[in-house]
């Protein structure tokens, strides 16, 4: 798993979890869309750090030490920004 530096992500600061490269650590900046209540219940909340572990049909990310698999549609609703 490659570890991309935050500096590489600075170019586009607002992107969705789908657009993040595998292995990147990012901060959740906003949730928007019909699935955001469910995402909040699972722990996807603003300001939390998340690491994307794999991409694909469903992507796996690590959030506060827990691995979660979410669909691409849900990941599209998670807006993230590079870690400050």
């Amino acid at each position, binding site marked *: 798993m490659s570890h991309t530096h935050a500096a590489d992500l600075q170019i586009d600061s607002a992107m969705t979890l789908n657009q993040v490269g595998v292995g990147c650590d990012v901060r959740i900046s906003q949730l928007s869309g019909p699935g955001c209540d469910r995402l*909040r*219940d699972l722990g996807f909340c603003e300001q939390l750090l998340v690491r994307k572990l794999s991409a694909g049909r469903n992507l796996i990310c690590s959030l506060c030490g827990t691995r979660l698999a979410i669909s691409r549609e*849900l990941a599209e609703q998670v807006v993230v920004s590079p870690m400050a």
Partner: protein
Amino acid sequence: MQGSSEFPPTIALIGNPNSGKTTVFNALTGSNQKVGNYSGVTVEVKSGQMFTPHGKKLHVLDLPGCYSLRAPSLDEKVAVDALKGEIPGYAKPDMVVCVVDASNLERHLQLALQIIELGIPTVLVLNMVDMAEKSGLRLDPAKLSEELGVPVVPMQANAGKGIIELKQALRFPFPPTPAVAWAAENLENSRRALITRLCELAARRPDAHQLTLSDQLDNWLLHPVYGWIAFLGIMFSVFWGIFSFARIPMGWIEAGQGVIANWVVAHMADGDLRSLLVDGVLGGMGGVVVFLPQIVLLFLFIGLLESSGYMARAAFLMDGVMAKAGLSGKAFLPLFSSYACAIPGVLATRTIDSAKERLVTIFVAPWMSCSARLPVYFLIVPLLLHENEGSWKQAMILFAIYALGTTSAFGVARLLRAKLGPDTGATHFLLELPPYHAPQWSYILRHVGERAWSFVAQAGTIILGLSILLWALGTYPKSGGTKDEMLAHSAVGRIGSVIEPAVKPLGFDGRVGTAILTSFAAREVFNSSMAVLFRVDEAESDEKTRSLLRDRLAAAKRSDGTPLFTPLSLISLLVFYIYALQCLPTSAVVARETGSWKWAFRQFIFMSGFAYIASLIVYQGGKLLGFS
């Protein structure tokens, strides 16, 4: 609200899935618990009893795991209803014990805050503190308790640490309802802010993201290539293990039955009573109880896969495959469990968020060949082979049987899913992948024990009753002449001749038709019925009895003198058993879970009709093609 002396106060355990809630429940209640299924309402809440350090009796409820009180999925709704006291038969909880995973406070406190907001006295349990501390998290339960206004108990429930402290916290009378200090106009934001502050104060996390052992394992087990190899390897080992390990205890059961039958024959005079005991009771139940080891092993392996955390990975891998059938990865566990028994499979569909996907999963679950069909397959498959043919051929046929049932289930699921249309609300695939850990043996063994007991209980009630009834129908009214003439004259012979026209196009005669009819209560009755109907005398061991029955079946003739069982009629019989829904308890559970008998009835008609037509096509089509 608090319990009077007559009714013990009720405490409810709630928490996110994978927070170790059931472990806490087991530690509190010991073996003093039962799973309640109340007909009419969809509920599966475990209840048990415990005593406080002062000897006060408390009633404990274990609610299904949930992420929030918003409750989009059915098992979450059950938990919310139970908290509100809206489930008939259960009192409104006087106190809530909210179990959270100490390493995941950022996520799990979300639910804890919602529960404190309900105004019920709450105790917060920080479970698995050992894991949290190992990962470098510095916890401060006292600070947390001060901020939230509720008692906080650190625990390591799987090692029994912290149980005394928790019992102390449940001292009666319960602490007063805490004031909600974070109440604000935008509750969501203020909760969020509080959780962030609490985690900074009381659960400081080391900054660096650590690659845990589970992460490393997942790199392999969820890999697009190696992950699938591991998945197929594990599934193959499970099935291979079931069939090869079960053989040893099956031999013991058979030997035991032989000893009992011999003892009865040696100690009783020949007559109707001996015939009832040997042919009816022992012959009927023996053919079914012998499959207990396989059922126990299947539940054991499924329990191991679930408890170790692999089942969630399997669901993740299978999501793409399930999508082809219009289902999601969440349908994998219910369908896989249905290989053991459709009933836990149907119950497991509650975790599926989409109502339509859940309905489709319930509808096709009985086509995943359940363990009750195994006795029938094991009786028929060897008849298809010659004596000296290797067991690998038998394994291939069994594999084909499972594959046929499964692919048909997926095909029907796809059609039905398309017919029902898209979901009204948005539902998405979301799955927590818990860390891998050593299986909790006590929990698995208890679950396996419950299942084994319910199987034995069924053999002792329904199957015993039907065996005796069949024996009586096959014995009376009595007449002279040979055994075959006596049977033809008996009630069974007459019923058989009525059924015969309906089953003849499938390649069966009246006796097989009668056995099929009796097996609509439970499939495994087929074996007992065949043993009773074909009058197989109990031999010294059950294996011999079964081979006697096989010899008898192989030699059985139709009224026109041709052999009754040809390869074609045997395949037709197998196909019938793959598809027919012959299990009253499953229909009852489907009716309860779907909320109406309509779906259970449709499923029964569809599957039984499909079985009849498929069997008809196999037999008549095969004959047209020149097979015999």
